[in-house]
């Protein structure tokens, strides 16, 4: 269909996102992403366990700073991500279409994703007020419980919702001060990498979100077993895989959050309870005296 005089388009190289950089997988492997008709769309990095290990190091390194950032700042940054995404609206629609989503649905999905980011940006300085408590203990002490981020969260995001499913999991984790390592949708990985570019342009500190592409089958065990990961989120693993995630996660008492059967386009897929999933309750006591 190209005319003789048409310009040759420049194709994008989709690389993974670790510690605020876009390296290729250290393994040098790739897999082909094809459109529904079988045409090659892109070479996708087939991330390895070492990539995952590097990503966890980056996430751990970013945790102290991000978790100590003020709620106001985190809210500002979430909002900035939404702004950046809105600005690249058409690109994301095009990528979704390229991966087989209808134009109408793609447009809706990008809209919903921007709105979801705005939704969580608004929660940044409020979920704490909803879920914390002052506890009236029966002694001369001031006692209060607050939420603190669980730590480094590994995420196996939905396969069938390449952008909205991705962001619906990342946003509540990072708005709560966690850092994360995400394994993008295997069948629709493009938006995840483009979203990394959005993050990169949105004042999100390096290492707060790290995004890998690759094979579920190869990486799920790593995501569940890594001893320096504090929580693992999974969204569409079959029963057998879910069971193995629970078993692997037990070794360092990782929190396991199952979001199987969530309808990502639905309003029920957003709530402060999603933020709370990757929070710990800390209770502090102090005497009251002169």
């Amino acid at each position, binding site marked *: 269909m190209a005319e003789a005089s048409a310009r040759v388009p420049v194709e994008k190289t989709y690389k993974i996102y670790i510690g605020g950089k876009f390296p290729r997988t250290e393994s040098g492997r790739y897999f082909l992403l094809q459109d529904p008709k079988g045409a090659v769309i892109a070479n996708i990095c087939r991330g390895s366990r070492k990539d995952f290990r590097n990503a966890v190091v980056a996430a751990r390194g970013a945790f102290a700073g991000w978790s100590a950032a003020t709620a106001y700042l985190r809210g500002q940054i979430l909002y900035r991500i939404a702004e950046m995404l809105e600005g690249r609206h058409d690109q994301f629609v095009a990528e979704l279409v390229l991966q087989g989503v209808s134009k109408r649905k793609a447009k809706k999905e990008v809209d919903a994703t921007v709105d979801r980011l705005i939704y969580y940006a608004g929660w940044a300085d409020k979920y704490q007020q909803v879920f914390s408590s002052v506890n009236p203990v029966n002694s001369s002490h001031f006692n209060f419980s607050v939420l603190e981020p669980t730590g480094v969260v590994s995420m196996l995001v939905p396969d069938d919702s390449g952008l909205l499913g991705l962001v619906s999991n990342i946003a509540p984790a990072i708005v709560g001060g966690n850092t994360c390592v995400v394994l993008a949708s295997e069948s629709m990985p493009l938006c995840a990498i483009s979203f990394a570019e959005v993050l990169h342009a949105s004042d999100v500190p390096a290492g707060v979100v790290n995004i890998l592409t690759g094979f579920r089958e190869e990486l799920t065990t790593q995501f569940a077993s890594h001893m320096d990961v504090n929580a693992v989120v999974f969204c569409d693993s079959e029963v057998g895989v879910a069971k193995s995630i*629970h*078993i692997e996660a037990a070794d360092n008492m990782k929190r396991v959050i199952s979001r199987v059967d969530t309808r990502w386009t639905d309003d029920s897929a957003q709530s402060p309870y999603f933020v709370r999933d990757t929070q710990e309750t800390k209770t502090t*006591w102090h005497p009251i005296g002169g």
Partner: protein
Amino acid sequence: MESQANKLAFNDGWQYAPAPESTDHIRIDEKYDLFIGGEFVAPEEGRYFETINPANEKTLSSVALANEADIDRAVKAARKAYNGPWSKMKASERGKYIFRIARMLQERAREFATIETLDGGKPIRESRDIDIPLAAAHFFYYAGWADKLAYAFPGRDTRSLGVAAQIIPWNFPLLMASWKIAPALACGNTVVLKPAETTPLTAMKLAELIQDAGLPPGVVNIVTGAGATGATMVNHPDVDKIAFTGSTSVGRIIRKSLAGTNKKYTLELGGKAANVIFEDAAIDQAVEGIINGIFFNQGHVCCAGSRLLVQESVADEVIDKLRERMETLIIGDPMDKNTDIGAINSAEQLETIQSYLKIGQDEGAEMYQSSCDVPGSGYWCRPTIFTGVSQSNRIVQEEIFGPVLAIQTFRTLEEGLTKANNTPYGLSGGVWTDKGAKIFKMTQSMRAGVIWANTFNKFDPTSPFGGYKESGVGREGGLHGLDAYVKVEV
């Protein structure tokens, strides 16, 4: 040092005469059956095991050894009660039953305290002033939640889970039973509870109390046995929720066996808490906090302050004062009202503690024990501190669950904080400083579920308790403790 020359003497002169709590007011049966469906029933196999007084090794009673069929019977009774009266009962009425348990516990407090001490070895002062009053307070607190759950989960409906299987440890037997049973019932669940095999008696007395309180049969079932009985409970297919307090290693096994099921779980596991003393702390109160942190309940406390981190500029002073204070601790007959430190709970636990004393010395640490005498029979361990240890020592890394303190020093806040957090555990921590900003810096940065600032080892029904990292999953106590016993609807 001058202070070495000016030692105080505590051991001669005026002494306290024995002041034993009397036992004429209590009743312990020779044998306890299983409490299932509101009745005491014999175990299917007819097997029983003895429970002893660890302070003199004398047998107190025998309790039933529940097997798989017994557990099945208990779960069925719980399911029936759940389907039947309990989940359908008006929440405010359910609350009134729980209030009733609280009041009856207060009325029978002295008997419970006495039996707790006989069966577990903890000082009567602690069971009288801490364990039993707190247990009653827990029931009282959660009773009030029963008809107010809508206010605990903003924007969401909740529903009860069903049958909760609850497995509790031997360090705070009745208190842990109340931590488990009270919120479970308040949220509309029914319960099968298993006390630890070395401390079953107050749970059986609680069964009697619950029977007397007229709770619908099967709402609370209490079964006795050892680890295998607990495993059977965990693996029973008709259980909806597992609540476990115990070691991290057993917690891991439980989680692995729950994998692939939809059972909800909360786990309260081990700890190796750092108690961090800064040079500007109220030193005398800090020393008292160290004592309370590690020697409370013979150190059989998952949140014990078993790692002391003391700033170098005050280390000598703190350690001198600590040794001196240790000399005034009274160790011995747990039934004596003046006893500060009672018996180690079991021969097995004593062996574990002693193995760590050997490990500590073999690793080159300097051991110091108070000079008190200990009784001839029973299981005892003198209050012990180790100095000259580092993060690399096993006695710094591993939970000992005894009256053994590992002391390290630090120079700067950052160093103290790094050492405090350098552990797979995250249950609790302590910080002592007179400077407000530093308190918040430390309490925010220590990765643990409960932080005591200028105090230690405080508990309250309104105060959530539970760990980060390998110290567990979920919270017990307070508003946050309700979460463990409800399903939050989407």
